[in-house]
């Protein structure tokens, strides 16, 4: 493999760094109050908030993971977009944003305090703060590992007289420090503006990759012919758990992924909701997720299709991969694909129980970059990867510093301080949040199981929260005790489900089954979907039951927080595309059309 970086590639990366920091510097003088720094002073135009909304979610894990999933399962991965994200984004914009934005809450946990009580907010604020900062660390680890595996920085690092392991350390340090720099300088506004810039860079880096790949395989028809059967269809085999690539039937897919997991993330996760709450008007806040839905719909072609191309492209010589481990996988032996075999830390190839090499799908995107991009474009492709990582990290950090400052520090540690003090705390939280993320990245490096465990915990926390918000916003009878004990029951149900089930082929332990194995799912994904369904249902039922036997809030306390007690916002804008409901209809219709076309 002869991919090397030249001055042009380094220049592109350095110019990008200069721009993101420059935007931070340009915004520094506007950061006068804690609201400017942590909430953007509610001044962001709709289209900017909309692009930031998806960009903050488009971390390195998303880009790498979606391509990996595309290489493994094919276009079925698009369910995460066309069945999951899009309907959820339409729902949050049309139905939920009036309460988030209209309540004047500064964060999602603060909405819970206004609607329910202090203990529900504390539970959400603390679990969210922990989760956000840990996932930022995990994402950082994933990115650094990937850059290390690309081996393109080995030569320059050696030229500097440093051992090769420094590629990993420097990847983490440099990208974390630059992200810290621009968030510290310009707060949420800087994170959002940079997310828009990063959005365009990510598109600029991946679009030519897809274009070259499709040219290479002979267009879409060539891709259909070259990829494994059914890889270019979304709904193929989905009718039964036996034939579905995810190992889950239509109900589990629609309810688990389409409803619970997607709505829980897009409608309640402060990381994304924060972008809409920074918008400059109610109308802009409601349009934010709807504007975001348009590019989000096209993203499967940008992030999943490269993964499919990576298994379908003809490889007359297995240059790119064979050199690394000298193992030619089955697909490559037939002259297709550039997904390499997985090697462990000692450089040994990993084999599954059938004696076939285990494939390292996470390398789909990086190998595609190296395969198709010459020096020059390679720099741009790397910049796109860095941009995706940094936008995801900045999203985590800005959500963390706001929840920490307003929902933990101001709420429980120092309630009556001056705004200047909270502005200082916002800055300080940005700094120590980054430090904890870096520490979490190294923990993830040393204990791979901890990473699995954490991701599991995150799934437990989000799913029940959706039931709490739906009941809170649309049922005025839902009481504070109901919400709190409902949430706890939801976590409990997820944990018990995990203890009683196991994915096929896994050993009892972190993967589940530690109480007793009652059910074996075909895949880990099926187990996750069902855990979410049980967690949501438990929370939904317990919240209703407890609410009915406890004291409700008075109606006048809930104005602006609950659907039936809030004057309805009629958005009669003269142009249809500025009306949230009209936009929502277009978005959902387009998502249905995509599902039909690629069925």
């Amino acid at each position, binding site marked *: 493999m002869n991919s090397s970086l030249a001055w*042009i590639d380094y220049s592109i990366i350095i110019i990008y760094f200069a*721009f993101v920091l420059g935007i931070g510097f340009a915004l520094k003088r506007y950061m006068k109050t804690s609201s400017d720094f942590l909430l953007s002073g509610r001044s962001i135009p709709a289209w900017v908030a909309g692009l930031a909304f998806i960009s903050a979610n488009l971390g390195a894990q998303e880009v790498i993971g979606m391509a990996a999933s595309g290489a493994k399962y094919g276009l079925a991965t698009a369910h995460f977009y066309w069945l999951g994200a899009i309907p959820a984004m339409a729902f949050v914009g049309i139905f939920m944003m009036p309460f988030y934005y209209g309540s004047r809450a500064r964060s999602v946990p603060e909405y819970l305090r206004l609607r329910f009580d202090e203990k529900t907010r504390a539970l959400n604020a603390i679990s969210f703060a922990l989760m956000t900062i840990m996932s930022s660390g995990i994402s950082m680890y994933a990115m650094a590992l990937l850059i290390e595996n690309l081996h393109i920085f080995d030569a320059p690092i050696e030229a500097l007289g440093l051992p090769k392991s420094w590629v990993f350390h420097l990847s983490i340090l440099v990208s974390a420090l630059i992200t810290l720099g621009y968030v510290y300088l310009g707060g949420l506004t800087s994170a959002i503006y940079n997310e*828009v810039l990063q959005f*365009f860079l990510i598109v*600029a880096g991946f679009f030519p990759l897809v274009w070259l790949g499709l*040219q*290479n395989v002979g267009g879409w028809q060539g891709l259909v012919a070259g990829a494994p059967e059914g890889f270019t269809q979304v709904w193929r085999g989905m009718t039964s758990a036996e034939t579905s690539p995810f190992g889950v039937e239509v109900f589990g897919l629609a309810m688990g992924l389409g409803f619970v997991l997607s709505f829980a993330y897009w409608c309640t996760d402060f990381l994304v909701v924060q972008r809409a709450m920074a918008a400059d008007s109610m109308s802009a806040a409601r349009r934010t997720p709807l504007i975001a839905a348009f590019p989000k719909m096209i993203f499967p072609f940008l992030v999943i299709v490269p993964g499919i191309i990576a298994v379908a492209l003809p490889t007359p010589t297995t240059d790119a991969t064979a050199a690394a481990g000298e193992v030619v996988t089955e697909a490559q032996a037939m002259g297709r694909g550039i997904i390499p075999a997985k090697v462990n830390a000692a450089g040994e190839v990993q084999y599954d129980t059938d004696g076939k090499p285990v494939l390292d799908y996470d390398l789909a995107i990086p190998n595609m970059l190296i395969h198709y991009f*010459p020096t*020059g474009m390679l720099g741009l492709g790397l910049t796109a990867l860095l941009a995706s990582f940094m936008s995801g990290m900045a999203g985590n950090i800005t959500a963390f510093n706001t929840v920490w400052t307003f929902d933990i520090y101001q709420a429980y540690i120092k309630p009556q301080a001056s705004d200047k003090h909270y502005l200082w705390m916002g800055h300080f939280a940005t700094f120590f949040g980054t430090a904890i993320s870096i520490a979490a990245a190294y923990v993830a490096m040393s204990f791979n199981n901890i990473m699995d465990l954490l991701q599991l915990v995150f799934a437990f926390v989000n799913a029940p929260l959706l039931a709490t918000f739906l009941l809170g916003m649309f049922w005025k009878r839902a009481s504070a005790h109901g919400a709190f004990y409902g949430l706890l029951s939801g976590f409990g149900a997820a944990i018990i489900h995990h203890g009683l089930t196991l994915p096929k082929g896994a050993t009892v332990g972190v993967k589940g089954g530690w109480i007793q194995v009652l059910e074996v799912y075909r895949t880990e994904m099926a187990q996750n979907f069902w855990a979410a369904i049980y967690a949501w249902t438990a929370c939904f039922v317990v919240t209703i039951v407890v609410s009915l036997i406890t004291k409700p809030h008075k109606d006048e306390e809930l104005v602006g927080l609950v659907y039936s007690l809030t004057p309805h916002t009629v958005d009669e804008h003269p142009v249809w595309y500025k009306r949230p409901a009209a936009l929502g209809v277009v978005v959902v219709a387009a998502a249905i059309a995509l599902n039909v076309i690629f069925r």
Partner: protein
Amino acid sequence: MAIDIRAPIGLLFLILGGLLIVYGAATHFSNPSMYARSLGININIWWGLVMVGFGAGMYYYGARGARAKATTTE
């Protein structure tokens, strides 16, 4: 906020696109084997052109937007 994000995005794309065009042109005849991996297409020049076009549009509207904003706030 007094900055219009379209202007810096436009500028960044103009600079990066320009760099790619220059580099692509310089390597077009001196090192054509470099483009074997991109199917014989000089992707540096072509994509550089697209980026410059996009950057120019963004910069134009961004600068116009910033001027409009400056006059309304004064």
